[in-house]
């Protein structure tokens, strides 16, 4: 069952308590990614976005222009020009090149989602597993706090925090970090409870390991794979919510480009130039599809172990 894992188990919640990170396993996982079509397509899309982000970020620091035109410069072409060889995604109302603007905005969505997911993963695993092993008040408090967070739509809460902090990519990242970790803590708690009474944990306890040592040394490695799979499926959701905040004008200030902001700024021109809001919207969708396919594939593969 190493390779050719078909995507038959479309279960939404990844649950595989026995999955354990090790070099052998990682090699086997990588080889099954190669034989899983969906995961491969997803991984390729993610790779293109990641590479673009890194290149744009590095060249941005070095002040090298890699896009065909300066993304901020106006009148590099006629205003509202249709897609052509000179401007493959057309130009906007100020004569700026849309393709250059979209490329330049790539690191925004990418870095926000990675920071938010990385933070939630770490905080969630620590709080969740401590709650599971300690029980008592901490456990109860965690469950009730997550109940509350589950009842408020993430976007509404992020909007409220975002407006309190003021617009900006950093502030939106903070807003998303505040609201994003509770599901991770809950999932980590559930996974940690599953393994809490397994023999190797008991063995570690009997051999005199302290609670912290058991959690860090035995519990975290065991629950990490399940959480990583959940996280990989969740990256797309962060991109979508961030795009929403950006669409509402909370992320970047004009004239800096950002995908969500571009859709909302260009939708006024959709009667005369429908491609203007279409391209940035399509790119958001493509990025999310890439992460969903990669996450789906990863889950199928890991569940086959």
């Amino acid at each position, binding site marked *: 069952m190493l390779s050719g894992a078909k995507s038959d188990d479309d*279960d939404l919640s990844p649950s595989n308590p026995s999955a354990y990170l090790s070099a052998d396993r990682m090699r086997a996982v990588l080889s099954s990614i190669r034989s899983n079509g969906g995961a491969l397509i997803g991984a390729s899309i993610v790779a293109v976005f990641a590479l673009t982000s890194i290149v744009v970020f590095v060249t941005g620091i070095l002040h090298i222009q890699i896009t065909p035109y300066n993304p901020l410069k106006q009148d590099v072409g006629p205003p509202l020009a249709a897609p052509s060889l000179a401007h493959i995604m057309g130009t906007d109302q100020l004569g700026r090149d849309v393709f250059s603007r979209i490329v330049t905005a790539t690191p925004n969505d990418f870095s926000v989602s990675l920071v938010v997911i990385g933070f939630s993963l770490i905080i969630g695993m620590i709080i969740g597993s401590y709650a599971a092993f300690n029980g008592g008040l901490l456990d109860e408090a965690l469950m009730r706090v997550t109940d509350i967070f589950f009842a408020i739509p993430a976007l509404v809460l992020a909007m409220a*925090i975002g407006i309190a902090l003021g617009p900006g990519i950093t502030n939106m990242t903070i807003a998303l970090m505040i609201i994003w970790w509770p599901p991770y803590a809950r999932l980590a708690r559930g996974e940690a409870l599953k393994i809490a009474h397994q023999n190797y944990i008991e063995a570690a306890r009997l051999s005199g390991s302290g609670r912290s040592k058991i959690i860090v040394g035995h519990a975290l490695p065991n629950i990490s794979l399940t959480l990583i799979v959940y996280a990989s499926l969740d990256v797309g959701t962060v991109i979508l919510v961030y795009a929403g905040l950006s669409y509402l004008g909370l992320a970047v200030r004009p004239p800096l480009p950002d995908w969500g902001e571009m859709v909302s700024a260009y939708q006024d021109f959709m009667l005369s130039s429908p491609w203007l809001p279409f391209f940035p919207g399509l790119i958001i*969708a493509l990025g999310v599809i890439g992460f969903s396919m990669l996450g789906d594939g990863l889950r199928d593969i890991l569940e086959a172990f």
Partner: protein
Amino acid sequence: MSFILRRLFLAIFVLIGVVTITFILSHSLGGDPIVAWLGKSASLHPALAKAYAIKYHLTDPLWVQYYYYITGLLQGNFGFSPSRGFVPVTTVIGQTLPYTLQIEVFAIIVSIVLGVVLGVIASRYRHTAADKSIRGFYLAGISSPSFFIALVLLIVFTFEFHLLPSGGAADPTIQAPRIITDIPIVDALIEGNFAYLASALQHVILPGMALALGTFGVVVRILRSSMLDVMKSNYVRTARAKGLKERTVFFKHGLRNAMISVITLSSLIVTWLITGTIFVENIFSYPGMGQYVFTALIAQDYPGILATTIVFAIIIILSNLAADILYVIVDPQIRLG
């Protein structure tokens, strides 16, 4: 019964938490709310600004404001909405909620029907071209931001083919029905005002579809995977061994049991739809709560933000509760107690 009572008790606790968290958050918003509410007249008439600040308890410490808010809330008083000319928030909610419910209900029906039909096809013809194209279709839907789907629908169905109206709740030239239930479509139906009913339904289609196209994929996905589990189960093997037709086995034994997982999922769909309404109602200038949230946030309308968040939370909590109860009713194996 004790299970339902306990869930209700928990729901009230969650609701208090929601009120507290949103209260703290919305009252730490940057900027001076008086300036946002009164505009230029705040600086022109400092006495007026001060009178407003005192009238709405803005000069008191946060916990005192919280006390006023909670006591008001218990009397059904959500305060006044500065972004709507200081009309009571309950009035604004009363005017906007019915419209949001109209598109939400439409979107839920479409997502579940579309999701179940495509989910059945996908699981019946697994690994065929049909299964794969359905997967591509729902993946595109789930992955697209709702504002993008809304814009694409608007460009195609309104601007290109002129099939459906671009926005609003109904044709303003048509006489609206009398208010009976507060929900215009239902009122039109009761009154027999079919001109309005037709127009209102036409105006619901695009925003509703924009929401449903983003969520039906979740139904396809869960139905397909639980069909796969169910069809491997012993009772399906027994049904086959009895010599029942594969069709009967698939629909009567398979689908009926797989539908249980769709029920639990329906509450999750509600949460997603609510997030989407904020964008979709704005794009289609639909006069619902999504649009109210949007304007309230920009205008720093605390009472409005708080009230809409609470109403959204109540909708989500109630749908969670409904899903839990339905789950127990549908599946006799589950006895949560």
